[in-house]
């Protein structure tokens, strides 16, 4: 009896294990979709968020797709007409048109799939441009698509917080000309413009270029100098009545913000929290020796704004610099 039990039990065990591991075959849905947020940086007004919305069917044809944003997007929001594939010979992504009639009406964007006989599965790009109204708010997206069989699928995105920062790209500075920068205005002025438009109280720093400076002719280069710094501005004829605020300027060489750089291949981003939490203990009122890809955290003398000023390029011959700015209002 014992022997029989010993022989039979393992057999039952094996059968039980086999049965327990068997999975049920579930027929996949004929119409399916998925969503990928391609943008990794913060959602900033002046830049866009990019999504890749994929949809495919095994029954009938794809008909159209729709994206509904919880907050109306700015100009440029909507689907594009193209899907992309990588050319295996060159490694370069190339577009192929898979959609038409891309329309954005309010918060809703739509597109019709074309060449449906072959386009049984497509991935379309959807761009969303945050607006001033969306600053500091969460925005969500509901993507959906239909097929010729009347079926519909949808994908609800998580919520994305739109940054409170302002961003301005490519401000051209020229020593002795367009050299007066206002963080409040996110603009650069000439001496005459400062005087004519009564901007004497709005200038936070001045751009100068001096190859060398000091009695020993020490290297100096491209610099951002607060009006309070008399040493480096002694040879500059300042606008009449220019206020002398001590703007705090803290140089950085390794903060290559991808959005301010405005090129692909970089994934460092200044976000709201960086400008909120950056402290300026004993910070200087100038930054010198600046070259491309460097920058400085800046805090206005009245404490109203914190900003990151990124140097896009410098030109020693033309004594010029191109900067981009991310700014956050602190109070």
């Amino acid at each position, binding site marked *: 009896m014992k022997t029989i039990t010993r022989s039979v039990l393992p057999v039952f065990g094996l059968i039980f294990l086999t049965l327990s591991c068997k999975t049920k075959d579930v027929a996949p849905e004929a119409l399916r979709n998925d969503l990928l947020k391609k943008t990794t940086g913060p959602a900033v007004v002046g830049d866009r968020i990019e999504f890749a919305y994929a949809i495919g069917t095994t029954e009938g044809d794809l008909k159209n797709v729709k994206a509904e944003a919880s907050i109306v997007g700015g100009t440029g929001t909507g689907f594009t007409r193209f899907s992309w594939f990588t050319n295996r010979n060159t490694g370069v992504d190339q577009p192929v048109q898979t959609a038409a009639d891309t329309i954005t009406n309010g918060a809703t964007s739509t597109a019709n799939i074309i060449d449906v006989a072959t386009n049984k599965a497509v991935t379309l790009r959807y761009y969303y441009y945050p607006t001033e109204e969306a600053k500091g708010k969460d925005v969500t997206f509901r993507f959906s698509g239909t097929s010729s069989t009347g079926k519909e699928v949808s994908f609800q995105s998580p919520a994305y917080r739109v940054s409170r920062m302002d961003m301005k790209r490519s401000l051209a500075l020229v020593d002795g000309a367009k050299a007066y920068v206002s963080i409040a205005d996110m603009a650069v002025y000439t001496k005459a413009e400062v005087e004519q438009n009564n901007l004497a109280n709005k200038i936070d720093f001045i751009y100068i270029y001096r190859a060398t*400076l*000091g*009695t*020993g002719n*020490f*290297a*100096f280069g491209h610099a951002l100098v607060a009006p309070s710094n008399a040493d480096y501005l002694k040879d500059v004829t300042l606008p009449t009545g220019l206020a002398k605020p001590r703007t705090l300027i*803290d*140089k*950085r*060489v*390794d903060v290559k913000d991808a959005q301010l750089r405005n090129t692909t291949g970089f994934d460092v981003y200044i976000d709201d929290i960086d400008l909120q939490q950056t402290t300026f*203990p*004993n*910070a*200087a009122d*100038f930054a*010198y*020796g600046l070259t491309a890809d*460097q920058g400085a955290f800046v805090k206005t003398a009245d404490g109203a704004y914190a900003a990151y000023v990124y140097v896009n390029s410098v030109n020693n011959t033309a004594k010029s610099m191109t900067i981009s700015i991310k700014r956050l209002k602190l109070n």
Partner: protein
Amino acid sequence: MNPGYKQEMTKTMKSSILHKFFGLLTLVALLSCSKDPIDENGLLITGRSQCFMTFFDLLGSDHRTVLVSGQTVIDTTAMTVTAVARYGTNMLRLKPYCSVVTDAIVEPTMGIWTDYSQPQKYTVVSGNRLVRKTYTVTVTVQK
């Protein structure tokens, strides 16, 4: 000899050997767990009595050195460090770091933003924590 008595003796001997073995094992285990002395920061206190600084540098807000190359002098007899900062250096916000002889430590801790418009003092403490030498760091700026 009584066989019962012999069996009892063998049992007692085995037990004694086992007790000695485990006792030895416990001693080894205890010895292996003994710790070298450490200071209040968890750093090892060793037998070394050497006490001197070998290298000194200052970083600006961009985490790049502000010192002019070849101008830093460490005098281990006078216990001074003199260095020259580049023209335009913000002396109010500099981050110092240094190298010291093996096992020695520095008080107060370096690596924090410090005002170098005035000379700063740092004490090098030997590995055995018995020798202390206070260095005065003086930095001038190119004018």
